[in-house]
């Protein structure tokens, strides 16, 4: 069966509602026949009218409500219309949800679904990646699926997880990414594991979310045009990081390029570079490099957006520079 990334999310949500009476969905415009700004809950909302509720435009309260319901034994899944609006819930996330387990020993299991990432014409406030500011404070799990199967399995694992999970789903992939999908497939990676999407010994390209597909394209370009064999790691889970998979790969390749569509400063790419340089130093044959979005707000005009946003060609260029070191 071929389904889109968004359909995989819908499937996981629908099944969770079907199977687990503790699960409810809360967010703006998700209820009824409308089914959400991106139509993720379309169909399933009508099947579960009592557990798919529209919220007011009150993101701080949405997060607080998720915390409270989680403490009372529910498994809330809250939808932000765009990840950009999760800034309003920042305090509840980092100061409240993230601290409950450590302070009280109680777990606070909920999922915040965050439509992330850029699309041409989206502009500064509908395109952002929130994973950097969500992952600095200890206590939140931050994941960013890049594939159809991950969208499904990781969402189910996120709902099962005892910690608050920030589920970053990429808007561009919603309808653009389609894949054969077999949900009965027995083994899938656990929530916290990175995936090696392509094996290779020359250079490790590390990425997550939408940028994984550019990383894979870059690896193809490099293979086709430069006879280079790149390993592509999809981090999947950003907090906690699968440091083992990263360091093992770098030990094999000696070279690493991290590609993200976030801003560079203090982002996950910086964290990965800090990791490989401090803990994998002896393996490095060349400086670890990062390629991120340009360091300005995200531009509205598609031409500016294209220049702002890393792509396969530019990733390949950085790999070539790394190889030439």
């Amino acid at each position, binding site marked *: 069966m071929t389904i889109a990334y968004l359909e995989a999310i819908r499937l996981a949500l629908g099944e969770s509602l079907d199977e687990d009476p503790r699960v409810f969905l809360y967010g*703006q*415009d998700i*209820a*009824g*026949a*409308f089914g959400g*700004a991106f139509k993720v809950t379309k169909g399933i909302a009508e099947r579960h009218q009592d557990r798919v*509720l*529209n*919220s*007011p*435009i*009150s993101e*701080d*309260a949405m997060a607080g409500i998720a915390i409270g319901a989680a403490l009372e034994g529910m498994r809330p899944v809250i939808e932000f219309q*765009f990840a*950009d*609006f999760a*800034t*309003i819930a920042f305090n509840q996330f980092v100061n409240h949800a993230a601290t409950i387990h450590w302070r009280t020993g109680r777990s606070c299991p909920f999922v915040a679904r965050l439509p992330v990432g850029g699309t*041409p*014409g*989206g*502009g*500064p*406030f*509908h395109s952002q990646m929130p994973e950097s500011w969500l992952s600095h404070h200890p206590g939140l799990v931050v994941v960013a699926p890049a594939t159809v199967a991950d969208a499904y399995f990781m969402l189910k694992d996120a709902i099962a997880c005892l910690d608050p999970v920030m589920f970053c789903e990429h808007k561009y992939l919603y309808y653009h990414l389609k894949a054969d999908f077999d949900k009965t497939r027995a083994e899938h990676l656990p929530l916290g594991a990175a995936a090696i999407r392509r094996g290779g010994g020359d250079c490790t390209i590390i990425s997550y979310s939408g940028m994984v597909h550019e990383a894979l394209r870059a690896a193809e370009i490099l293979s086709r045009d430069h006879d280079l064999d790149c390993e592509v790691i999809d981090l999947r889970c950003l907090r906690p990081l699968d440091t083992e998979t990263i360091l093992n790969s770098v030990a094999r390749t000696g070279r690493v390029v991290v590609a993200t569509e976030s801003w560079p400063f203090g982002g996950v790419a910086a964290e990965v570079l800090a990791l490989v340089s401090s803990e994998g130093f002896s393996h490095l044959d060349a400086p670890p490099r990062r390629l991120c979005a*340009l*360091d*300005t*707000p995200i*531009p*509205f*005009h*598609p*031409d*500016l957006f*294209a*220049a*702002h946003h890393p792509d396969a060609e530019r990733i390949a260029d950085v790999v070539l520079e790394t190889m030439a070191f």
Partner: protein
Amino acid sequence: MKPQPQKLPSIASPKASDPASINDLRVRHLRWMILARALDDRMCKLKAQNLVPGSVFTGRGQEAFSAAGGMLLRPGDVFAPLIRDQAGRLAFGETIIDVVRTCMGKRTSSMRGRDGNIHRGNIDLGLLPMISHLGAMVSVVVGMLMARRFQGKLVGNDLCVGMASIGDGGMNAGALHEAVNAAAVEKLPMVLLVANNQVAYSTFNDRTYACKDLVDRAAGYGFNGQSCDGTDAAACLAAIGDAVARARRGEGPQMVVATLLRLAGHGLHDPADYITPELKSRFGDCIQLDSNTLKIQGVLSEQDIERLWEDARTLISAAVEQAQTEPDPDPGQETWNAYAEPDLKKVRT
């Protein structure tokens, strides 16, 4: 690039006491409403022609309320519009050409292609370029008015006014609450226009608030509150006119809540089939209603009104034609720098 003021057939600024001038006011009001509607319609067409990169939102059905707000302001006032305020923006001084340029993402637009569509603004004119986060603009207006007070400009009984728009949905954002409360504490000449169009995107009022009427919130903030029928052009002018006059006289913050219906989807992409025929039947179209009234009252003839539409379309077409010849932004010429002072290692003198 400073936007050029558009040339509209001039109608003298009326005095409220003069019955003839009331008609002038009503005619100017209708003209802004029509211009906004025609511009919104044209933007929808441009989007269909793939000439607009981002989303298109229209103020269909809300023109009477929005235009009244913008018209009753004057140079030196501040206006923080939202996504359905094409009418108010134009009436306050936004140029048609900047609307078209911004929506097309042109380098010549006030946002230079960096930001688009409804996020445009012109701070020099007192027209704030909104960020998307609902409620966030209101405290900025509070800060602007406080600045003027510090600067000694808020004295006398003919104060400048800060106006901000919000919807039934945005009224529930924490940012809105904090800002409105701060305006009240500072007793500022702020006018909050609440366009209760029954829905926030697809969510009806019963899921966004539980008071009887949003105007009930005014007393809780220490605002003077009043309501009006947002489909009735004269009622909008009267209510906002009164609120603005009170604010100018130094009577402190004002809230005007209009009841109306969004007569389109949330954005152009939204068929809005959740709006039932029953609901639709309860609300008229402010432009149709006002056109009829002005005809019945003998203020305008059918032809006058037709001419208002034609003039509007002519102005818009000229702007579209011009904008289309203008350059897109060039990534290679961008500085890609977010700071006003990119070099902080320079010694300050």
